[in-house]
């Protein structure tokens, strides 16, 4: 299986956008390393949200059959990350919503050599 085939068999772009979103969300509290680890600080919540979104983005790459559930969790975490990380200055939150929605909208398909998806009804968008 080459890279293009591997990429098409999973929600590649949704996962990549989710990972970028998690990195942005993580970046703000990482600047905060001092107070993030002070006892009772809420800033550690931002670290948790960012880290979880990155892990879930990676999981959706390797477990494409769970993309729907992972997408929903990523969307919720992105919104909640406004608390404690300011959602990566909101850019992380918006990217998390885009990535999560892309994962949620992705579904695996199978076709025989003589029935390429392009020949199926056009109710759905491009493959990815």
């Amino acid at each position, binding site marked *: 299986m080459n890279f*293009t*085939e591997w990429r*098409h*068999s*999973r*929600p590649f772009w*949704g996962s990549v956008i989710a990972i970028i979103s998690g990195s942005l969300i993580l*970046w*703000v*509290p990482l*600047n*905060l390393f*001092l*107070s993030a680890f002070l006892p009772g*600080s*809420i*800033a550690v*919540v*931002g670290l948790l949200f960012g880290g979880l979104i990155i892990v879930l983005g990676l999981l959706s790459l390797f477990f*494409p059959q769970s993309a729907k559930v992972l*997408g929903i969790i990523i*969307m*919720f975490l*992105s*919104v*909640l990350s*406004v*608390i*404690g*990380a*300011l959602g990566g*200055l909101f850019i992380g*939150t918006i990217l998390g*919503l*885009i990535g*999560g*929605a*892309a994962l*949620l*909208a*992705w*579904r*695996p*398909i*199978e*076709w*025989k*050599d003589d029935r*390429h*998806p392009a020949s199926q009804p056009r*109710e*759905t*968008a*491009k*493959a*990815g």
Partner: protein
Amino acid sequence: MNEKKREINRGGRTSKKVFWTSFLSGMILLGALLVSIGLSGVAYAVPLAGVGDFYVEFDNLEGDGYTFYPKMGETSSSKSAPQGTNLIEKLTIKNLKLYKDFKVGDQWLRVEITASKPVQITGLQQDASLIQANAKFSNLVLKENYSSDWTKQFKQSSSHITLGSAKLKTHYLFQKTITMNGMKLTVHKIDKK
């Protein structure tokens, strides 16, 4: 993806309808969270970092539980610059103004946040490289410690701090909770030589 060797090809599809429905639902959820913060007036764990140095100005600050120590930290123009970290447990600020200037082409834009009513903050951490203010301290303690880490060699603390007519060049700001009533955000052009 069209391999002649295999009978079954596997791939994936993204449904536009599901994508937009989910994305809009997420935006509504985000809007609901921001509205709830707006209604209660309290925002939790608000960091302001990564935009480079910005200025904080206010008429008066009354705070309890103040600690200051030196550090090296990032600014927008340098990876490591001398700064001071101010920690204040609980404070009230009157006529707060936060602003940052951006050069767009040959013009300067100022993004400014002001609060017309007193702002209440708990758990403030602020990294500043310049502090201009009329300061009053109660129970001020200046302490030197023997340590190989230079940031731990000096510490200043006070049970109560009052700052008047202050201007602080800030690089990092974090608030555990902030109540900001009468907040106004404006973006306008400024003349800057």
